[in-house]
């Protein structure tokens, strides 16, 4: 019995010993790594905010440009492209509109456009009642297309034409009216034009009245020469994208300007007639006035071209006349009726050259396209 107890005790001690010093089994294999989380959103420029803007269209006349003073530009998907609302579509992929004045349609611009109703905004109606507007944007740029068809009206002197010859100097004689040389500026028109206008810094009531706040201040019967384009406070500032058929189109840029209320400056082409609050962005413009004048309070002693073509004084005035094609005017060899262009085309620079633009005239219809950086970083430009 005692021996049996001893054996059982030995067995228990052995089991206990095994428990104490016996090896554990190996751990199981590590499970497989879980799937990686979804990637974060890639950085992208924030979607531009919806905003108001204005549109004006001219047909060879400074006193008749029709427009839509207040349009709504939307970047979301909540609004329909109708009435005064223009939907600016986000471009996907690498394809972007070619700024060539050729309508690439929905393949280039997406499927949304708005047929805008235009109305008389100044003294006369140019009878252009509709314009088709498309807009698109991508990470860096915003694009616009404006398309309109001209209307002829002989009573109003309106013709359907690509107006590329707005004015010219005509030589009369070397001694007339007390001037050393007598030149007349003959104005045949005002080019074809389209302008887009955006707030840079808030214009009070722009969301109600649009650009009418700034142009032709006063009444609808205000005459040219008494217009004082201006914002109504010194702080308010409006961006103006001004495309014109001959002073800007040959350069491939729209003339980039702004308007504020800090003062009136003389018009470059007609400094004796016009002043307004429209200023050019910093840099060189798409054209410069071909004008030399000297005047006192009582008389004009000089009023003539500053430049002539290198083949003058016997060439026919044509546009565009580039700065590298001209030489300084000389009062020699001119005969009555000889002509010289009234402005010189120049390559724009700096902020004045922010807006690529090209227009094409086809069978009575202008198609003008624009492209600009969404944020130029210039205080004279709006930011999208």
């Amino acid at each position: 019995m005692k021996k049996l107890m001893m054996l059982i005790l030995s067995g228990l001690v052995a089991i206990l010993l095994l428990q104490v010093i016996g090896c554990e089994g190996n751990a199981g294999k590590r499970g497989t790594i879980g799937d990686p989380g979804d990637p974060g959103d890639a950085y992208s420029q924030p979607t531009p905010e919806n905003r108001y803007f204005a549109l004006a269209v001219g047909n060879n006349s400074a006193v008749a440009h029709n427009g839509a003073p207040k349009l709504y530009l939307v970047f979301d998907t909540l609004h329909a492209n109708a009435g005064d609302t223009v939907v600016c579509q986000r471009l996907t992929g690498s394809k972007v509109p070619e700024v060539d004045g050729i309508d690439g349609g929905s393949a280039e611009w997406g499927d949304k456009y708005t047929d805008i109703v235009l109305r008389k905004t100044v003294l006369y109606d140019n009878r252009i009642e509709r314009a088709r507007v498309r807009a698109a944007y991508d990470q860096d740029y915003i694009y616009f297309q404006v398309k309109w068809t001209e209307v002829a009206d002989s009573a109003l002197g309106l013709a359907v034409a690509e107006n590329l010859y707005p004015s010219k100097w005509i030589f009369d004689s070397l001694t007339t009216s007390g001037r050393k040389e007598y030149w007349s500026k003959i104005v045949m028109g005002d080019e074809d034009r389209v302008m887009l206008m955006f707030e840079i810094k808030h214009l009070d009531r722009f969301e109600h009245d649009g650009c009418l706040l700034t142009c032709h201040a006063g009444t609808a019967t205000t005459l040219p020469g008494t217009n004082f384009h201006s914002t109504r406070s010194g702080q308010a500032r409006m961006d103006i994208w001004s495309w014109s058929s001959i002073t800007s189109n040959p350069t491939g840029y729209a003339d980039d300007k702004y308007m504020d209320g800090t003062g009136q400056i003389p018009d470059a082409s007609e400094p004796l007639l016009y002043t307004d609050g429209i200023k050019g962005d910093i840099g060189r413009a798409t054209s410069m006035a071909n004008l030399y004048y000297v005047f006192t309070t009582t008389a004009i002693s000089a009023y003539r071209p500053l430049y002539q073509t290198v083949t003058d004084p016997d060439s026919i005035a044509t546009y565009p006349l580039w700065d590298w094609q001209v030489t300084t005017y000389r009062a020699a060899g001119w005969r009555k009726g000889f002509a010289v262009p009234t402005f010189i085309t120049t390559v724009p620079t700096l902020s004045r050259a922010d807006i690529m633009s090209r227009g094409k005239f086809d069978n009575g219809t202008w198609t003008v396209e624009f492209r600009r950086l969404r944020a130029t970083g210039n205080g004279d430009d709006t930011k999208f």
Partner: protein
Amino acid sequence: MRKWSFILFCLTALAGLIVLVGCEGDTGLTGGKGSKGRRGTAGYDPDRLPPADRVFAFAVTNATENAISGKRQLYLTFDSTAKATKDTVVAGRISVPPLIDGLEGEEDWGPQKSKMPLSFLNPDPDAVDCQLKNGIVRVAYDDDNIYFQFQWQEQAVEATIDGKKVEVASVGESRELSELTFKYRTGLDTTRVQRYSCKPDSADFVLDTSYTFVRVTYNSTCITPAEPCSCYDLRTRPDTSYLWVKRTGTGEDKVVVFFPDEGSTGWQDVAFKQFFGFSTGSSNIPSDLFVDVWAWGAGRTGPVSVADDWSISAAGAKADAGQAPYIDNWIASDSLPRYMNRRDPNVRTSESGKQTAAIYPLWYFDAVGYSRSGWAKGTNRTPITCSLPGIITMIPSGSRADVYTAARFDNGFWTVEMKRARRTHNGDDVQF
């Protein structure tokens, strides 16, 4: 006792045996698949983070080339909690860029401005302090661009030089840089002109400007100063050309901003000497030096609304890649202009009624090759002075046109505003 020992021995042996030959435990089960990782954070554009703080310096002049006043060092911080002082400029983050037009535009620049006295920075012994004062610097930035505004005040200064009181600085815009003039007169008294060399650094060089119309002969073999060039007596030479000289006192007002790539002690002395051509100071340039330089001048760059973009490195001062906003209109070796206005000769002469004609800026498209024909003639008793611009204005391009600039002069105060992309992606620019 033996029995217990035996039992203990058996147990120990049994335990050892079990340890040696016992089986290991079973391997555990394979773990489960880990859970899916968290969604990554939204991406960001590193260009849109606030720039790193840095130091910079600026220098201003009043119608001189190198009599500079300014601040040797300013600390530029982008920490909006910092306070602007005379030594610290606090850049404000803005949502609407300021209008670069040279007007004060208080509302566009954020709340902080640094006001500071300006020190005279030219170490040359003969340099005269123009005593420019009341410096103000403001800086703003946004995602893509950085904007600077500099203001300072000019004042009229007189100094006594060789016992005479001389006006060394006046209040004005000083846009007519290096105006070239000559006086045409008959009966030239050449006996007072001793010798003239086409090699300005020659020891024999004597430039007698007591007469600005002298007889010189262009020597085509003397193109560069390094070539040997004999001096000759003007009295023995035929009259073949005119001598044009730079009218004294026709410097320009300017502001030059220096941004070292990394702040290091004494970089200003090297940068100022290299850019302004001081005669004193060490000519040794540290091999790792890089300083970006933005130089606005009322005459050189004002008409085209840029600052001239340069850099200074171990190789010295060098213009950034691209077309300059101007070219010099003077051939020093011949004392002749390269170009004149298409309307020259005599767009500006001292003839009655013609003194006020504007000759600056002379744009490249208005310039033609210089001709000696037709300049106004005077007499010994009534000499006529004719003028030509010392520079031709060009359209700048490339990296040299990175810095948009506009300036206004109002009642003795200059306001100069600049804008540049924070990242130009040009190796000759610092990046913000």
